[in-house]
């Protein structure tokens, strides 16, 4: 490798890297939305009165929490085509893997969130004659989400960093795009340092936002 830091290669590859970053962001966004919805349902199952559902949800959560994400990605990468019976793109199978995996973590966050809502609120809702669904929808879950916003965003940052793992199935996200350029131009150092700085800047910005939110929450 030639010595010296070549800035030009970084500037020239910005359009290509931006495409990769777009995929990373889309994957993160869809992963958060799917994981949050599925995770909330799991949390409701875990806290609900049906013992079987609670057991299944708890098993699901413990199962995914003791597996490495790469193995989950491999599982779904090979499993989904078999279940569907047709070839599906790497993006779809990786997205499903992320949603299933993150749901286990979001379930634990939402469970803590639901438990942080005062019991009096639930009783008050019941006293007003709300059904279980209405009570959850209008009383408990809005407060649970609000209480958990800082932790939910922290988990979103973790998910954003985890999306770099789609590298193992060759999906061209931000890191993999950089890797393609790094290998074709033989400029590993420049590309990897650029990738690290961009990830660092985005995560740091999000983390500062979380810290401000937490401060605001603790004042209230």
């Amino acid at each position, binding site marked *: *490798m030639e010595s010296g830091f070549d800035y030009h290669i970084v500037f020239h590859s910005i359009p290509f890297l931006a495409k990769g970053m777009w995929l990373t962001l889309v994957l993160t966004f869809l992963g958060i939305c799917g994981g949050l919805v599925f995770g909330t349902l799991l949390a409701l199952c875990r806290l609900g009165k049906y013992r079987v559902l609670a057991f299944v949800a*708890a*098993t699901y959560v*413990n*199962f995914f929490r*003791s*597996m*490495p*994400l*790469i*193995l989950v990605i*491999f*599982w779904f990468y*090979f*499993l989904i085509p*078999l*279940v569907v*019976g047709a070839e599906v793109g790497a993006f779809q199978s990786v997205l499903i893997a992320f949603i299933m995996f993150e749901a286990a973590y979001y379930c634990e966050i939402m469970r803590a969130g639901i438990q942080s809502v005062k019991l009096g609120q639930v009783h008050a809702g019941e006293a007003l004659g709300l059904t279980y669904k209405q009570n959850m929808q209008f009383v408990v879950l809005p407060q649970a989400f609000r209480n958990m916003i800082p932790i939910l965003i922290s988990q979103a*940052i973790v998910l954003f*960093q*985890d999306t*770099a*793992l789609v*590298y*193992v199935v060759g999906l061209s996200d931000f*890191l993999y795009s950089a*890797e393609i350029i790094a290998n074709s131009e033989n400029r*590993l*150092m420049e590309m*990897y*340092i650029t*990738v*690290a700085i961009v*990830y*660092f800047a985005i*995560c*740091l910005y999000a*983390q500062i936002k979380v810290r401000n939110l937490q401060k605001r929450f603790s004042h209230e």
Partner: protein
Amino acid sequence: MKWGYLRIGMILSVLLLLTGCAGDFRYNWQWEILACTSEDIEAGCIGPYLIWILEGLGWTIAVASAAWVIAFSLGSVIGILRTLTEPILWVVPGIKSPIYFRFGPIGTTKGQILIDLGWFLHGFANLYVTIFRNVPLLVQLFLWYFVFPEIISDEAGMWLKRGMPLPEFWTAVVCMGLYTASRVAEQVRAGIDSISKGQSYAAMAVGLTPVQVYRYVLLPVAFRIIIPPLTSDFLGVFKNSSLALTIGVLELTAMTRQIEEYSYAGFEAFTAATVLYILVTAIVMWGMGIVERRARIPGMISLEAK
């Protein structure tokens, strides 16, 4: 977690097999492929896959344990540094300042120049945690493996790439260790911060030095409080060690991938790996549960609630 991990693993394996037998998901399970030895080559297997898997498990445990040694020792130091709030003043010998000034950690009193070492230590620890927590682990791994040997001197770089025994393994260990240290540091800091200020004031009032306050009062309690989060950090590095496959360490996940490529018996290998990951997690949780109960301070509510 009170659920029996073993029981859950067994139930899931059975469920997996049932879904494999019935429904849309049709897969021809061939468990005998995993069990074959190197003598059964004509039976359609290329290698002793079961032994590969166990070897992979060995590497996974080796990476995780070695990284944990780094993570725990470095993380504890950095976590303690992050809790330092009092200035540690150092008098610069020999130099007298004619004017009074104060600039950040450097200032003067009675003509002597003082430097607040605590400011630098605290700043270093904060910077460390910020950097290592905000870059994805995979990117860090690539930086250590591909970039780091290039930016240091040529001989040292060559030694890192060629001369050192097991370069991929040790790179993975150092990378995972330094990354996990930032997580351990956060737990240690949270543990120390959760002890009421009265404890350290009382210790100082008795006449202990700052080092003694940490050694005899704060740390023994803090480390007991953070046993559960430290356990999950260890399990985190155990799971994260699978990332080492990207730089060529043949750990458990890499081995299953290799078996998939050699024999197309991917699901058997994945299932075996999954069961092993769950098994090790269960054993660690069980062991740490015992440690936590043994180390419990009688009457401390925060320990009993968790």
